[in-house]
């Protein structure tokens, strides 16, 4: 009997792994997701085209500020231009925008000037450009105000300080530098991976069941094996595919880490040799991250991840199989997909909050309730989770998996032999009670 399940697992596994789509997803998956993170950052660093803002600064407020690399100011001489001339000049020049700062009158009241500054443009003004100009004006007006209060700008410049707090977490035994951002990153990636795998592989199970049903092989199959064996074999077969895919990524990731470590650390060591002793160069963020990564308990996190990954997948897989068994074609699955997807989508929303506050009550409850715990608990695991909470969550998850698989199996064995009209949810639930 168990050899039959083994055969089914083997078929599912080999059939998927042999497919080109598996190879493509395994290789392309990490590249695509990396691109998702890296490309926007890369585009942000690309130089913008240079824009010129024509400025008529009558009170000479801006002190002929040059602007920044992609936003330059072109000052018109207030003695030669009035507002009308300047506008006409701007319209003819085709420059990006025209900034008008009106004279402050006799008392040079900065607030009065502020209220009457206008930025003219012939198209839409870029949000960041407008923000930049506003910040700049605020700075100069503040300076004017300080001057009028008798504060020397020189003194002000000297008093400016930059603070970088070093956070240290005392709870973690030895004093380590706090790894909060890195931990958040790990929690997010882990939770999101589980979410993704549950959906992708759950949908594959559903499709597999529908395929067996529509190709009518299912009746031949269950004249040889029990429906539950067929369902279970399919679920485990696909789980091993998912696991293989994940392990390939893990090996890639570790290899990449070591390659990166040799390059970045190597460079950083060179740099620190050259630099004066005691001087910590600010640009060594990469080095810092490398350092902190070394302090994270990866075996513990990966172990927990594999547990929640497997059982989260198993919990949902049986449900997806039951949905697939109830319908004749994929387009009929929508209404049943909704109740199953809901907790998954809720988990991904809570995941973000849980990363922010891993010990909060929302994070606690969602990481205990089985349907959301696989994803939300992963947000908490890189931070310290009390052992009993972790144990409770794991026990409940395994229990829920057993109960749901049993229920789904009962729906499945009736569903796979039902053809024709699309059943309603109520009927499907009734199948649970059918005797076979």
């Amino acid at each position, binding site marked *: 009997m168990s050899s039959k399940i083994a055969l089914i697992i083997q078929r599912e596994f080999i*059939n998927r792994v042999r497919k080109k789509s598996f190879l493509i997803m395994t290789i392309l998956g990490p590249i695509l997701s990396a691109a998702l993170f890296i490309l926007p950052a890369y585009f942000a660093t690309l130089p913008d085209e240079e824009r010129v803002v024509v400025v008529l600064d009558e009170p000479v407020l801006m002190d002929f500020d040059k602007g920044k690399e992609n936003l330059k100011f072109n000052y018109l001489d207030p003695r030669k231009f009035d507002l009308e001339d300047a506008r006409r000049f701007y319209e003819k020049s085709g420059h990006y925008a025209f900034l008008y700062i009106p004279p402050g009158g006799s008392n040079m009241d900065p607030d009065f000037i502020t209220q009457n500054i206008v930025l003219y443009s012939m198209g839409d003004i870029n949000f960041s450009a407008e923000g930049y100009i506003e910040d700049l004006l605020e700075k100069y007006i503040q300076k004017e105000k300080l001057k009028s209060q008798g504060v020397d700008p020189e003194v002000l410049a000297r008093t400016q300080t930059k603070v970088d707090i070093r956070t240290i977490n005392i709870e973690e035994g030895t004093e380590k530098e706090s790894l909060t951002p890195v931990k958040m990153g790990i929690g997010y990636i882990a939770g999101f991976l589980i979410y993704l795998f549950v959906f992708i592989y759950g949908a594959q199970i559903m499709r597999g069941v529908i395929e067996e049903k529509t*190709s*009518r*092989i299912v*009746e*031949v199959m269950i*004249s040889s094996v029990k429906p539950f064996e067929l369902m279970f074999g399919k679920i485990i077969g696909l789980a091993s595919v998912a696991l293989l895919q994940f392990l390939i990524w893990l090996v890639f990731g570790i290899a990449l880490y070591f390659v990166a470590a040799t390059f970045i650390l190597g460079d950083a060591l060179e740099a620190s040799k050259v630099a004066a002793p005691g001087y910590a160069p600010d640009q060594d963020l990469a080095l810092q991250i490398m350092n902190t990564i070394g302090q994270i308990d990866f075996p513990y996190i990966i172990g927990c991840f594999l547990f929640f990954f497997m059982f989260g997948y198993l919990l949902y897989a049986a449900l997806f199989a039951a949905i697939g068994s109830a319908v004749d074609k994929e387009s009929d699955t929508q209404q049943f997909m909704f109740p199953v997807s809901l907790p998954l989508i809720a988990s991904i929303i809570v995941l973000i909050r849980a990363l922010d506050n891993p010990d909060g009550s929302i994070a606690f409850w969602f990481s205990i309730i089985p349907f959301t715990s696989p994803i939300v608990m992963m947000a908490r695991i890189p931070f310290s989770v009390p052992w009993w909470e972790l144990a409770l969550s794991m026990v409940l998850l395994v229990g829920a998996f057993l109960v749901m698989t049993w229920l789904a199996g009962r729906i499945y064995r009736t569903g796979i032999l039902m053809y024709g009209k699309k059943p309603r949810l109520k009927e499907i639930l009734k199948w649970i009670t059918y005797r076979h």
Partner: protein
Amino acid sequence: MSSLSIQNVSKFYGDHTALNKVSLEIPQCSVFGLLGPNGAGKTSLIRIINHITAPDEGEIRIDGQKLKPAHTANIGYLPEERGLYPKMKAGEQVIYLARLKGLSKTEATQRAKAWFQRFEMKEWWNKNVEELSKGMAQKVQFVATIIHRPKLLIFDEPFTGFDPINTNLIKSEILKLREEGATVIFSTHRMESVEEICDRIALINKAQKILEGPLKGIQQEYKSNIYQLELINTQSEPPELPAGAELLESKREDNSWHLQVRLQQDEPNRLLQKMMTQGNLVLFKEQIPSLNTIFIQKVSSL
């Protein structure tokens, strides 16, 4: 000693009764026709025999033993709706299904190859099932059904979808299997398609068995002493019949008379003698009722 014994089996789906206390005895080495219109309960019964579903009442015994999951290794089942994994190679598929029936990998491979050779489909071995024509796929499925040499073979609507050549091929293979000791069950609503090859039959209608027995015996029982004759003579008057014979139909064609005659008593020789005196008798045949006729007669008499 019977190979398959179905005792008082009932099956209900909610309010619907699919089978109502059906009992059948299917002897070893026979071809058994399970006949009845669509929706009579044939498929429900077959699924119970295949251990796909369980009966709500009654029990099934194979060779005297109560039906249990291990028995499925000795059953070969070709469902009405044929199907194979579309994205799996034909050869692999047959091996896979054979192994699920308990064959070892080597044995499954060996037998599958032999069958592919015998059915002249070696070149399909590495083709995905979806690339095969419908007839080809059915041959592959037939091989998958019988590859584990089951003692009990169940064919639901066996000849639908096969072309005449394949139908003959399959028929002769099935009869060969019976000679080798297999018990064969045919389930169909097209009664005329199995009339010639069944040893025993059962008629099922509306979840109930209405008739069961050897085909020949049933036909004898339901025959109505009607004879067909063709007599060559030149007279324009219909031939004279002996006493107790009733002329049902007469037709003149060229020089011959075609007659249909019902006898009150089963004494065809008297009719024969009388007719021989009136011309050249070229046809004298008792009309055996078809299963269709019997079925209709039986249903309407209930």
